[in-house]
């Protein structure tokens, strides 16, 4: 589980080649949710 925190490292990518793109997608979803919440409070 610990290795999923560093998905850009070669030993993780060798085992799970899609780890980096999954990481980028997850981070993007989290950032998008934060943006929607901020935008909503900003509009209020």
């Amino acid at each position, binding site marked *: 589980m610990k290795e999923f925190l560093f998905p*850009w*490292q070669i030993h993780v*990518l060798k085992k799970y080649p899609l780890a980096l793109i999954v990481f980028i997608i997850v*981070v*993007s979803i989290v*950032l998008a949710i934060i943006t929607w919440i901020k935008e909503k409070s900003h509009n209020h």
Partner: protein
Amino acid sequence: MERISNYQLYILTVFFQTGTNIVFGFGAVAGRDAWISSLISTCVGALLVLLYVSIMHMNPGLSLIQWWPKYFGKWIGSIISWMYIVLIVYQISREVGDLKFLISITILPKTSSLIFLSVFMLLIIYSVYSGVEVIARVAQIVFYLLVSLVIIEMIFLYGSKIMDFSRLMPIAGEGWHTIAKGVWPIGILSFSEGIELAMIWPLVKKPEKILKTTLMSIFTFGFFLTIFDVLAVAALGSSIFKNSFYPLYTLIQQISVGQFITNLDAIGVLYLLTNVFFRMSLYMFAAVRGIQQITPVKNSIIFILPVSIISLCWGIIMSPNISEHIEVAVKYFPYNLSTPLFVALPFILFIVSFIRTKKYKVM
């Protein structure tokens, strides 16, 4: 609003595309036929750039980050836009990683990489803070200096009497499949990063000339790549060129005119530092402008420092050694990141925008 001329866009695109490609040896996997790989990659890469510019023409005034919410809605669109921003930050970190290894292997072996990377990052922060107009003007000045250095270096290489053009023969001697290895995926996908320049395209004074300008810079870059590949193979031979981490650096080390003009290694490092400076500045500008466009924040300046700190730390911890750093760039980055984000998604967007634009015209 900041504006740059088409000529400045031309120079910025040349610097952006060059990046670290030249120092690492473009198409080196094709050995003595690397120059053929470079030529083919340039032509196919130009088609990719044509795709990006076509999307831009269908969405005038909008940047890469604004394309996605327009067609895919607020929910999916903003997730895709954030994916590009995170990817840009990752690419800044990769540039930091490139610098970390090159500088410690070549000119500053005993200096802590944290020190020079922090100083370099401060320079990037200052340039992004000054704005894209300033970056473009500096690029204009430095461009002539670098081109002059390249010409002088070529003369010195010729004067060193180390060139043996028979090393380039036989042409395509190892078969076209070896050349193809240099073309796909790394060769073509190196050009695909040009999509990130869509963040500065809305700032260009004559948007109708962006296609011509960008194609000219792509072919200038392709010309430099081909010349460098020919020189490197002729001077070093196919096996050293293929197996060296930094063929350009090794090539410049060979210069010895009358045992008087020698040790020009610093010029090689200067090439890399200059190209990386402009590439990182443009990445950083794209990232902070992208964040500003996607969030309800009016001023992008507040994002410069957080993005710099994240990318600096990420770049430092990214890879423990140069072999692993290059392995990720060669084996995983092209298939898992470049292909979906720089080829597949833009292609889908092109089809969607084409259909929508046509439908709108009919209505």
